[in-house]
């Protein structure tokens, strides 16, 4: 990856509705799971989205933001998001602005220049707490792995992880 080992760049890109959003704004003080993906056409991405949809149903009550990022334009991402029934933010890097900054250019696709599949678990300050290389499908984290990462991160973030006594 082309960024430092500790801090993810604060990307600023259009979301699926066309509004410009920053990653730090989207974290909004909570842990953030960021997924990069090749595009809606990839069967591996289609399969992995079913895991993320299961994860969404837990994240919605667990104070965790989710972001998916690809080179598709906002209108394509909006249609994908609606079709999936996803309720998290999709970011569009149609200009390939961050592909090389992040070191995530899929060099084997010289036609479409998509993102390599990857998943990052970020703290609210965008510190990287876990990084998964999803080039091969089994490199992607399952829901239980994300849960373990987020348990460790949330335990650090929340001073009342141990419930108040008495």
């Amino acid at each position, binding site marked *: 990856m082309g960024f430092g080992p500790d801090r993810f760049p604060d990307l600023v890109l259009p979301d*699926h*509705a066309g*509004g410009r*959003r920053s990653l730090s*704004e*989207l*974290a*909004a*003080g*909570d842990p953030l799971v960021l997924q990069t993906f090749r595009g809606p056409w990839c069967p591996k991405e289609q399969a992995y989205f079913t895991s993320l949809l299961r994860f*969404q149903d837990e*994240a*919605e*009550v*667990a*104070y*965790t*933001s*989710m*972001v998916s990022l690809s080179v598709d334009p906002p209108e394509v991402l*909006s249609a994908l*998001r*609606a079709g999936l*029934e*996803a*309720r*998290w*933010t999709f970011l569009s890097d149609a200009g390939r602005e961050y592909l090389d900054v992040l070191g995530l250019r899929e060099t084997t696709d010289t036609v479409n220049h998509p993102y390599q599949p990857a998943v990052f678990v970020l703290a609210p300050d965008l510190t990287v707490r876990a990084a998964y290389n999803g080039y091969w499908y089994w490199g992607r984290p399952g829901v239980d792995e994300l849960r373990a990462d987020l348990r460790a991160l949330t335990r650090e*973030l*929340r001073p009342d992880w141990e419930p108040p006594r008495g």
Partner: protein
Amino acid sequence: MGDRLWLALMDSRASGCTAAAALSGGGCLVGWLQDDQPVRQARRADPRVLDVAGAAALVSLVLPPEDGLWLFDDPAVQQARRAVLADARPADVVTTLLLDASHFAGALTVRRGEGAAALLRDDPFGRIWPARVREVGPGLLGTVAPPPGPTIERHGSAVPWPGGRF
């Protein structure tokens, strides 16, 4: 001044309010930034929605019947929050309204521009109680970036969703 925003439907601008704007059909939507409830019918809203430089807009206001408060975590209210997050064309403002830490006391949705009226006819909170759609004058309501998703929980039971953070 305080950290809490209170909104109420009034016959006219109230003395001591922070901002107010006329509603089509008569009356005013009035806002107060203060800790204590200013008038009996005032409900707490996400303070980010208040903008004294905000443009005129269309609003959908959903209020419960006098004897009909539902729990904030009623599955119907949860599903309305999910529908807000799933919306491919996010509103300029969405805030739930609160009277206490347990109950859902309504919602305010603000839209501007082409298609605003049609989109407000499908206000997710309008599936719980009837929505009143009105034009509201300038000087009260701004624009807030849509929530990142998929969190539907409040950041503390006294905080109107989707505002607040830990």
